[in-house]
């Protein structure tokens, strides 16, 4: 209908007319078409949820087959079972080692390692953090969580660093590894668990392997980047003196990449700590167990305390590795002081072991569950008008209508809308991938639940991106605001993901809005930071030129900064959406339902295993779809990338 007047118009004017067509016409026409089709076909070709779908039964049968043949099929007998035993061995060894240190020994070792990494400040942080875990009354569970985390990190690094070095050295390997890592990074945590259970049963071995897989991508990615970034001149100088490849690797590349690789270790630990508590779903020991049990009973106080313990562990490990990554080469004297301090602190801790009780002393523990619950009760009693109102507005104003639309629209209309939208934003290839993902979700018989999850993600990401954009712009324009925001964002990024559920639960109880709130708190820091960095990356000379032409601040923002930061803004949107999905899924633990709940139920009930497994896959597909749709940022830059390669 748009082209009709063009044919009628005189030929001379025709091109001008086409060009002058306002830019909003095509999108508006698209929206109008979708709405019209929706109204016409509403309720037809919908895919209602069916708990008894054949696929789920088929998956259950597959699980049964695996269970029956676990001890006879050669692939289990000679490969899978050994992997399980190996992972379990690593965990049990580490756990036994940490327990054998005794709590004073572990505190001494933590302080010593802190000292080694970053002097007395970090030593103090480590000591205080681990002591705090004991004071909270969760020493034993924390040691189990620590052992689980460390064994997963150890294995991640064992495989991740060599793979990263290889990828850093070989263009071909990098080309194979990068897309795999991309997908791994957008996979919600839950989707790792079901297949692990199938292969490795429930328990710490499965948990270790799932966490290892989840935590490996940053190790590989950052190692590869570190190796690639090593100064080519230094490498060439080494080669010109006749060094072999291994000599250059060991004496030039690795030492020069070491600090960045340590940063990769930091990221690996952070990822592992996000995953480890969730592995309690597959019967892994540790703090996650207490946390999940309390969440299930909506006992906020009892959930918050182990949550704080995990956050403390996260802070200690983060500060320690971050300090180690910033360490510079120093003289022999400084080295002696560093190792001496380490030895003294560790020895002091170990010396106290025989003198102290084996358990962390009870008189040092504080009970804070009750006071927390009192606060939560008070909030519920006094703020309910506000929180309830907010909850209702989002639920009845946004979630329910959107969910109604998505679940009552014909599947082909939703798919077509996704295709057209993704095509426009990120190009044809991305659009096709997104469409295929969505069709696969339909084939998994999980359409309705996927639409429910999608609803949550859309609402949460719109809120998150809007707030992140505002915060980022404010931080980029005001030094004061940025200085205030930065430590908050830094702290937020160290926290394991599920810990964001806790304040949300305290405020809003169980439900979908809690999941939205949690993903908001989880993703806003990243979005805000990307926006701020993008705006700040606009070259000073360009800003100066615009200012000298007489731009107002507002014009500067709209005409210079935002357009030039386009790549960062799109990346921020992409990250915001992917992170929101990750969190919304975890929100199933606090009653957000949909696909996340299907996964959780799959662990709890034997007969729901098939549905849980399918839901895990559906989550991956949904993640890939959302990522592709918003990948315009990366896609558009690709021609330059190719030219550089």
């Amino acid at each position, binding site marked *: 209908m748009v082209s009709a007047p063009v044919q009628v118009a005189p030929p001379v004017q025709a091109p001008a007319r086409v060009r002058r067509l306002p830019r909003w016409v095509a999108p508006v026409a698209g929206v109008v078409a979708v709405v019209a089709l929706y109204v016409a076909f509403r309720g037809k070709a919908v895919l209602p949820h069916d708990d008894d779908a054949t696929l789920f039964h088929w998956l259950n049968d597959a699980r049964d087959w695996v269970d029956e043949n676990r001890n006879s099929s050669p692939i289990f007998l000679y490969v899978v079972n050994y992997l399980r035993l190996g992972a379990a061995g690593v965990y049990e060894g580490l756990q036994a080692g940490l327990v054998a240190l005794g709590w004073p020994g572990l505190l001494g070792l933590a302080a010593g390692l802190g000292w080694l990494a970053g002097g007395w400040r970090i030593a103090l942080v480590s000591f205080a953090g681990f002591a705090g875990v004991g004071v909270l009354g969760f020493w034993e569970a924390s040691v189990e969580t620590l052992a689980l985390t460390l064994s997963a990190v150890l294995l991640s690094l064992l495989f991740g660093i060599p793979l990263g070095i290889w990828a850093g050295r070989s263009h071909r390997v990098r080309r194979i590894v990068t897309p795999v890592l991309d997908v791994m990074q957008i996979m919600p945590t839950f989707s790792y668990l079901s297949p692990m259970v199938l292969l490795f049963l429930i328990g710490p071995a499965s948990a270790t392997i799932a966490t290892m897989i989840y935590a490996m991508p940053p190790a590989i990615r950052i190692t590869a980047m570190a190796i690639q970034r090593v100064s080519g*001149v230094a490498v060439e*100088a080494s*080669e*010109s*003196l*006749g060094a072999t490849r291994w000599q250059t690797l060991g004496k*030039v590349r690795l*030492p*020069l990449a070491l600090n960045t690789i340590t940063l990769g270790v930091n990221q690996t630990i952070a990822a592992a700590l996000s995953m480890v508590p969730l592995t309690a779903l597959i019967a892994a020991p540790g703090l996650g167990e207490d946390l999940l049990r309390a969440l299930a009973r909506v006992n906020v106080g009892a959930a918050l305390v182990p949550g704080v313990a995990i956050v403390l562990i996260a802070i200690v490990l983060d500060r320690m590795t971050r300090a180690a990554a910033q360490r510079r*080469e120093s003289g022999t004297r400084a080295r002696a002081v560093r190792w001496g301090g380490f030895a003294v602190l560790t020895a002091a801790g170990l010396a106290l072991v025989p003198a102290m009780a084996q358990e962390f002393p009870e008189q040092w523990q504080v009970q804070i569950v009750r006071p927390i619950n009192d606060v939560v009760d008070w909030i519920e009693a006094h703020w309910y008008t506000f929180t309830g109102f907010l909850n209702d507005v989002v639920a009845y104003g946004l979630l329910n209508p959107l969910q109604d639309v998505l679940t009552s629209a014909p599947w082909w209309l939703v798919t077509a809308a996704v295709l057209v939208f993704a095509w426009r934003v990120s190009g044809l290839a991305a659009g096709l991938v997104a469409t295929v993902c969505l069709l696969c979700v339909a084939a998994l018989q999980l359409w309705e639940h996927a639409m429910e999850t999608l609803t949550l993600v859309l609402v949460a990401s719109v809120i998150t991106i809007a707030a992140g954009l505002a915060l980022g712009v404010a931080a980029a324009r005001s030094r004061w605001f940025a200085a205030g925001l930065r430590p908050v964002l830094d702290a937020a990024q160290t926290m394991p993901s599920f810990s964001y559920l806790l304040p949300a639960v305290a405020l809003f109880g169980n439900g979908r809005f809690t999941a939205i709130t949690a993903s908001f708190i989880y993703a806003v820091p990243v979005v805000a930071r990307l926006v701020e960095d993008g705006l700040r990356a606009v070259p000073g000379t360009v800003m100066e030129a615009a200012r000298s032409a007489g731009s107002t601040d507002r014009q500067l923002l709209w005409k210079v900064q935002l357009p030039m930061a386009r790549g960062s803004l799109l990346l921020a949107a992409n990250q915001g959406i992917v992170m929101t999905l990750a969190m919304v899924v975890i929100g199933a633990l606090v009653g957000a339902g949909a696909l996340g709940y299907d996964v959780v139920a799959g662990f709890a009930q034997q007969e729901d295993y098939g549905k849980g497994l399918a839901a895990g896959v559906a989550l991956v597909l949904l993640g890939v779809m959302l990522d592709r749709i918003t990948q315009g940022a990366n896609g558009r830059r690709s021609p330059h990338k190719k030219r550089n390669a």
Partner: protein
Amino acid sequence: MGTAAIEVRGLWKIFGPKADRIIGSPDADLEPAQLRAKTGCTAAVRDVSFEVRPGEVFVVMGLSGSGKSTLVRCLTRLIEPTAGELRIDGQDVRAMSAKQLRELRRHRVSMVFQHFGLLPHRKVVDNVGYGLEIQGVGRAERHEKARRILSLVGLEGHEDSYPEQLSGGMQQRVGLARALAVDPEVLLFDEPFSALDPLIRRDMQAEVIRLHREVGKTMVFITHDLSEALKLGERIAIMRAGAIVQVGTPEELVGAPADDYVADFVRDVPRAQVLSLRWISRDPEPDEPLDGPELPADTVIHDAVPAAMASDRPIRVVADGELVGVVSRVDLLGAVRPGTGPVAVAASAGATGEA
């Protein structure tokens, strides 16, 4: 002349897909820009031949992108040449196995880089000892040797510093010391002083001249700076678009540029300070007195001025005890005048490009 320290014959380096097919085909004669448009390949070094005598300082000079840095890297196959012959001390470098090549790099040819290429995580002494370390020399011995070399380049007392604590000039001295520490026969310099301030650069040039006198290594020196080339080079090769345009002594380049490109290059060189009397001497006129002051033919024109001032008779230019010609005050003034040159006379000196 004896065997050359380095002998290069018909060397090619073409970057890009199927580069080896271009050599010998008509495409090889294309200008680099045309070649890139046609085949997607970049010819960085095109049919280069030269020889470096033992103990000589041989300068390769050209603008950026002329292929000089690629050329010097081809010499030890840091960049693998596409075609051509390459001998160092009579041995065929291109035929060497990986192991032989390593031995060559470890013991016989070492290199100084524009951006130093020092290892920031190692002390100065360990940077200098790096070449010995990868040869498997023990710690005590390589430290002892490194200290000795550091004092040779004027860096005693800085052994335990880290590179970032040193100034750019000092860092390049470390780079120089690292190259010297393995006691190579040949030193390759890839624009070693381009990243330095002008004053420091002058010091470092003097340092290289001094080292050459003291240790007498064969040196191949890459630069884009003509004055540096004239100052250091016994012979200079001028590169343009991957090919060598002319090889010759500074005098030959200034006095007898092979083409307009070279002429353009050396236009602003003060001739009187580069050319010798040989270039402006002429047969005496029949009535000219031949009892003026006598000077050797290789005296730089500039240095003949005091003699011309002391006597109004034409200077008698002699070589090997024989009179080759005379130079009057007018000839001298003509040579000193900027913008003109005794190009017409050049042919008589018989200087041509190919060495």
